[in-house]
């Protein structure tokens, strides 16, 4: 029997290693669906999914949308500009309205940490966190660990460097939780303003010297510099950032043979990664996109099926 009993997926922090592994195993089965002549299964036929994106996103929303289509669910997209949030309706009222329309699953992207949990506690619908503030982005971490497991065979004992803006990154937080729970080693790399020593308390190593780390890692996960979240005092400036922390061609040569290069996208070519490196054989950036679809199908399937214990 599947070990999944949750109604919602709100964070990686609250999951056990077994639950994470269960999602990854389920995702492997769903990935195979993409290789079929008919890439659609009837598992969620008759269910309605609402993509509720209060913060802009194209790839995550599209990925969830396609995942829902492949599971035969019906999909409605609502973005901040088209919702009544701009007319002063509260998040809870908007969500109550969605529920009154019998939405079975709400995929929420929100600028405030904790917004998905707030909804999950008040609604019977399943709530999937598609990124909440700087808190978590669980499906991104699941697709990253899925990709590592697929390419390297396992997670335990793997050394992963997460490079860039850790402080403001929900992708980093979710990845750190997932990797540590599955037994990987995590080293965080970036300017001291964006990678504070506090992260050592989570169980990661922290360094501000990228060149000393590269020869020792199996995976580098580069994060996008989030210009929209930066304040000037945190960030050294694009040119300086690239020279200190960018994965240039010269730096990529220091990596072990077989080391993976990952990026959650969208890439800032020439800033955190050289264009040539992003397109090199070691880069698994497009595999991440493909795997994201399989992981999201698995998450929707698990949260919408079976008897649920309210979270």
């Amino acid at each position, binding site marked *: *029997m*599947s070990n*999944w*009993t949750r109604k919602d997926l709100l964070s990686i922090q609250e999951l056990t290693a077994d639950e994470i592994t*269960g999602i990854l*195993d*389920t995702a*492997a*089965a*769903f990935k*195979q*669906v993409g290789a*079929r*002549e*008919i*890439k*659609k*299964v*009837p*598992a*969620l*036929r008759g269910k309605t999914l609402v993509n509720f994106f209060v913060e802009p996103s194209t790839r995550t929303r599209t990925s969830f949308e396609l995942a829902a289509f492949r*599971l035969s669910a019906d999909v409605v997209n609502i973005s901040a500009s088209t919702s009544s949030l701009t007319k002063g309706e509260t998040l809870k009222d908007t969500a109550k309205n969605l529920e009154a329309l019998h939405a079975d699953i709400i995929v929420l992207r929100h600028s405030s940490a904790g917004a998905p949990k707030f909804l999950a506690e008040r609604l019977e619908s399943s709530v999937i966190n598609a990124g909440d503030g700087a808190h978590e982005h669980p499906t991104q971490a699941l697709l990253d660990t899925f990709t590592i497991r697929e390419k390297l065979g396992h997670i335990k004992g793997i050394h992963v460097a997460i490079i860039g803006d850790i402080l403001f990154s929900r992708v980093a937080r979710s990845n750190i939780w997932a990797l540590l729970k599955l037994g990987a080693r995590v080293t965080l790399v970036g300017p001291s303003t964006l990678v504070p020593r506090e992260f050592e308390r989570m169980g990661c190593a922290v360094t501000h010297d990228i060149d000393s780390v590269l020869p020792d890692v199996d995976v580098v996960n580069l994060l996008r510099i989030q210009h929209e979240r930066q304040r000037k005092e945190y960030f050294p400036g694009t040119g300086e950032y690239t020279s200190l922390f960018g994965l240039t061609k010269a730096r990529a040569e220091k990596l072990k043979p077989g080391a993976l290069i990952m990026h959650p996208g969208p890439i800032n070519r020439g800033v955190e990664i050289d264009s040539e490196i992003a397109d090199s054989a070691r880069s698994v950036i497009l595999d991440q996109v493909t795997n994201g679809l399989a992981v999201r199908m*698995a998450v929707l*399937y*698990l949260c*919408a*099926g*079976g*008897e649920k214990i309210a979270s």
Partner: protein
Amino acid sequence: MPTTPYPPSPKAALVLDAQAIDRALRRIAHEIIERNPEINKVAIVGIPSRGVEIAKRLIENIGQIENVKLELGVIDVSMHRDDIRLRKSLSPVEVSHLPLDLEGRTIILVDDVAYTGRTCRAAMDAISSFGRPARIQYAALIDRGHRELPIRADYVGKNLPTARPERVFVRFEKTDGVPDSVWVERI
């Protein structure tokens, strides 16, 4: 290897032992050969988990009789079921793989117990998303009756009349870590 209680429940009675299962599967292998003159166009497709074990044994038996190595397939039915919300917990979703080219082939679907027919229906639905085989046949080690759909097994190891609340257990050394056996818990 997972181990389960043996016997599966204190009240369960033995229906088939390892030898009887072997005999039934050898007979089914002969029937498959008899019904399919072009035996090399047949692929045996198991429904996880015990259907896959039975499928492997049928391939072995057919190989011994006809000196052919038939292709093995695995078809996951969990994402094709119609009762997602009715079930207490989800069974694990397994990776499916089928022969690349289904066109013109005969698929023999293999399950441990034929019961309502809903698993078989879901499996046929799943297969059709891979392509269009020439025909699909259905083999089950045990047929316990109570069909809810117009589905009939082409090959049956043993017909076992049951009442609905009764339970049937199939166990294999390979999948369960206990001796090959079939049990029924009568009410």
